[in-house]
């Protein structure tokens, strides 16, 4: 029983970390219809900024997260203007080509400036200790990640379902031309959504760095994982992303505990099974 609980808690933490990173991609893919393979590249940029701020400048963790999000969004603005605008509404394979190109460039440039070594983001004392939660010892930052995941999920749900912007966003997604005609400035809506998605990628990159360490190859190394999680959840769906992350996190964690040597088999077999049963993901929109 203790073991089960302990595995469950690990799975939950890992799933939440995945969720924070992936939800931004889910938004871009589901709402903006862009297969943004460079999503991880933005998370990685944020990781580098946070690492620089916290480790080299000695700023606090919270400040580092804040700077990373702002910095990454600022970096993303010209990229969105110059590159992404050209691929909105284009065929997916063209989007894949463009965003893989962007990923390669970001990796090359990062490697050039920061070198190929791992970069850590030092945690504040309060987050770096192991915490005894009764049945097991767990790192405090894992609790922090779970909390972040909850806040992000709730915040996004509120933003999309309960705010004026959310209404405009959904209208734009359903029918951009119609929304335009109704006076919604769709370009602005797209730009803001893109910024939000990038901001989430940045948050995920920094907070999730304890699971997925920051190094130049981050952007490619985890690309498949992100893409798989988003598709399984159903692109654009927050509950879908939550369920997919938690479920795949659970399969991954349990598989690795029970039969680590077949860990990948479990994970991908689960993916195949889920996709065959839910071809649009758990909460995917009809196409």
């Amino acid at each position, binding site marked *: 029983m203790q073991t089960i609980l302990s595995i469950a808690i690990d799975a939950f933490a*890992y799933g939440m970390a995945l969720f924070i990173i992936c939800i931004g991609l889910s938004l871009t893919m589901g709402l903006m219809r862009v297969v943004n393979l460079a999503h991880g590249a933005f998370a990685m940029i944020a990781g580098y900024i946070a690492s620089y701020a916290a480790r080299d400048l000695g700023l606090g963790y919270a400040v580092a997260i804040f700077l990373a999000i702002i910095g990454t969004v600022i970096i993303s603005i010209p990229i969105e203007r110059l590159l992404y605008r050209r691929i909105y509404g284009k065929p997916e394979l063209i989007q894949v080509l463009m965003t893989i190109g962007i990923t390669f460039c970001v990796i090359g440039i990062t490697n050039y400036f920061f*070198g190929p070594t791992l970069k*850590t983001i030092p945690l504040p004392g309060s987050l770096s200790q*192991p915490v005894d939660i009764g049945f097991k010892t767990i790192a405090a930052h894992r609790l922090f990640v779970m909390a972040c995941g909850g806040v992000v999920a709730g915040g996004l749900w509120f933003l999309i379902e309960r705010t004026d912007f959310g209404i405009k966003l959904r209208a734009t997604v359903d029918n951009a031309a119609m929304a335009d005609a109704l006076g919604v400035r769709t370009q602005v809506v797209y730009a803001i959504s893109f910024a939000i998605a990038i901001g989430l990628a940045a948050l995920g990159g920094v907070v999730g760095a304890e*699971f997925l*360490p920051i190094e130049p190859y981050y952007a490619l*190394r985890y690309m498949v994982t992100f893409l798989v999680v988003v598709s399984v959840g159903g692109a654009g769906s927050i509950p879908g992303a939550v369920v997919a992350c938690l479920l795949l996190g659970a399969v991954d*964690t349990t598989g690795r505990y029970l039969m680590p*040597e077949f860990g990948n088999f479990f994970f991908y077999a689960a993916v195949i099974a889920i996709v065959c049963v839910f071809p649009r993901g758990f909460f995917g929109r009809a196409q």
Partner: protein
Amino acid sequence: MKASKGILGAAIGALLLGSVSAYADTIKVGIIGPFSGPFALQGKNFQAGVEAYMALNGKSVKGHDIEVIYRDLPAANPAQSRALAQELVVKEKVQYLGGVYFTPDAMAITPLLKQANTPLVIFNAATSAIMTQSPLVVRTSFTTAQTTSPLGKIATERGVKKVISAVSDYGPGVDAEAAFKKAFEAAGGQVVEAIRMPLNTNDFSPIMQRVRDSGAEAVFAFLPSGPTTLGFVKAYNETGLKQAGIKFFAPGDLTQESDLPALGDGAVGLLTTFHYAVSHDSPENKKFVEAATKAVGGAEQLSFPSVGAYDGMHVIYKMIEATDGKQDAQKAVDAVKGLSWTSPRGPVSIDAETRHITENIYLREVVKGPDGKTFNKEIQTFPNQKDPGLATQ
């Protein structure tokens, strides 16, 4: 189609011209390594080792100028490896091949050596079997079995009877698992469980749960350097295994110097065995570290592949000396059989039988230096270790 070939032709032609203009009495050495991609740091260390050697020992041997040509092979890719080796031999006319980080890449080059009349000096690729593929291969790195085996005795000496082994599920990991099991059981210990973890494991907490549940007194681990090692060591600390007194043994790949800053204080106390520590205390090493640091561009990026490359260049220089610039692979290899010298890592020699390096293996503990940075401190020496994998064959 034709047009594209034309463009390719012009560009490659331009490259060709560049290399032809070098004068005749230049001996070319082709180095293949991962200079980009996830393993770029290891490739950089190859380059640093080569440049350090040439800086300290000159760029010519017996009046023959040495020119080094680097070729990038970002990840294990035998087809590309063969293509690069072929290009280096046939087009660039290199007389010596060196480098090679991954085993399959070395395997793809060995069938070419005889026809190419070119020796291959391996700076890293650490599987025993490579040496048996061709008599023209010499290796200056280590094998996983070689660096791992002393751990068996070390563990029992420290009162550990039961160990759980956790290795990444790929060739070197499996080698390490087998080598440790053999050595540890020979010393009277028991491997209670052997876990093989997928290479792309991101979260190691479930593995740590397994370690805890197994009732072992220590964990033996082997993972490729980089994010996975970091994740593993972090999980080891965070899940309280360290506080619970479960010891951690591993080959030195896990605590290579370039990873230590990222591992931080969490790594303090880890026990690893390896052939080289940057902190090794000897005049040769001091000179080497100084030169190599300059070449690699930062002290914290220096790690073990550099010394493999450095000694590899030493072997190549000796080969050139013996053949006096003439291309004769067999003579070159014969000349270095039994060669012994003092490397930055300590006294070493090339085994005449296996052509693999015989070297000291050191037990090191990660400790915190006066400057607050962690480093590998050598605390025990196992002199003149051969590769057990080759010795038994």
